[in-house]
């Protein structure tokens, strides 16, 4: 368990250090994620202590954003000054981004599925005729 905590801390620190060395503001925690993934990739499944840690923390991940989120209240004055463009961009931009991405991937996935499933479908059809 402690070893798993240490391993996560190590990759987080390595990610933060790499992000600072990059000279461009990359997300250190995400680099740490990629590091831990590469580190675990030699296993078929995640090691048990790491899996337990993830299954304990990740289902409650949403609560971790509450302290920072409460800070939005502290900025109501700036947000109010340009409320319409800010809310429009945050709400509209995010929803459009999700809709466009989800629809694109769905089409691609359907096309990919059709392409790989076509031979079996044809086989089934031929079988039906015979």
């Amino acid at each position, binding site marked *: 368990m402690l070893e798993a905590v240490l391993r996560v801390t190590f*990759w*987080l620190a390595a*990610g933060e250090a790499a*992000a600072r060395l990059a000279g*461009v*503001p*990359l*997300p*250190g*925690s*995400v680099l*740490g*994620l990629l590091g*831990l993934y590469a580190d675990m*990739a030699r296993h078929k499944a*995640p090691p048990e202590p*790491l*899996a337990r*840690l*993830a*299954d304990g923390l*990740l*289902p409650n*991940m*949403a*609560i*971790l*954003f*509450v*302290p*920072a*989120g*409460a*800070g*939005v*209240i502290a*900025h109501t004055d*700036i947000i109010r000054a*340009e409320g*319409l*463009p*800010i809310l*429009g*961009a*945050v709400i*509209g*931009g*995010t929803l459009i*981004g*999700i*809709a*466009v*991405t*989800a*629809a*694109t*991937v*769905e089409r691609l*996935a359907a096309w*990919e599925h059709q392409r790989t499933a076509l031979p079996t479908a044809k086989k089934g059809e031929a079988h039906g005729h015979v």
Partner: protein
Amino acid sequence: MSENLSFSSLAMSPLFGVGLTLGAYVVGVKLQLLCRGHMLANSTMIAMATVGLFLTMLGISHEAYMIGASPIHILLGPAVVLLAVPLLRQAALIRSSRILIIIAVMVGVASGLTAGLGIAWLLGASNATLLALAPKSVTAGAAIGVAELLGSLPSFTTALVVMTGLVGAVAGPWIAKLSGARDERAIGLAMGIASHGQGTARALRISPVAGAFAGIGMAIGSVVTAGLLGCLAVFTR
């Protein structure tokens, strides 16, 4: 005077910060249950509003509360790193979907940026606000770095990042389904790319596949966006 002093130190203590956060979250979960899980009764959103309301009522600054709440806030980094676990569990599906993932990131980053900035520009946002809005889909840590490079206020950018995450977490599954997506990879990728960790946390509650694809979408999407905006800021200086 000394009474005031001890009160302000209590406001900064983990006992208050962690206690208030956990309490507000429990209120959020209960209220969402009462509303039969309606998406607009999102437990995280209720928790944020409850904490904000409490701080305003008690006259405690967000900075003071944040010191006490740091044990919770600090777990964000490890949680993102631990997303490697659900990702590894879907390694085979991720590998076979790599073209899907690359296209999703390109489409997601481009559409999110143009739609967000386009709407803000049409509605008359100032240049300073446009710059602060640009990194809104990136995880907070990197968004603050980008914000500093672009010369906008870090705490303001954080507020925009959190609002963006909240929109994705609250309405993401709904808008994804409305756009015709049934594939959980599509739903996950879209939510992770547009609304970073908060969207990923929400997608993990849909299914392991949606969660893993949100995680990979967030990871690649935020590196691409942060890198892109960072380079742009460096080269246009």
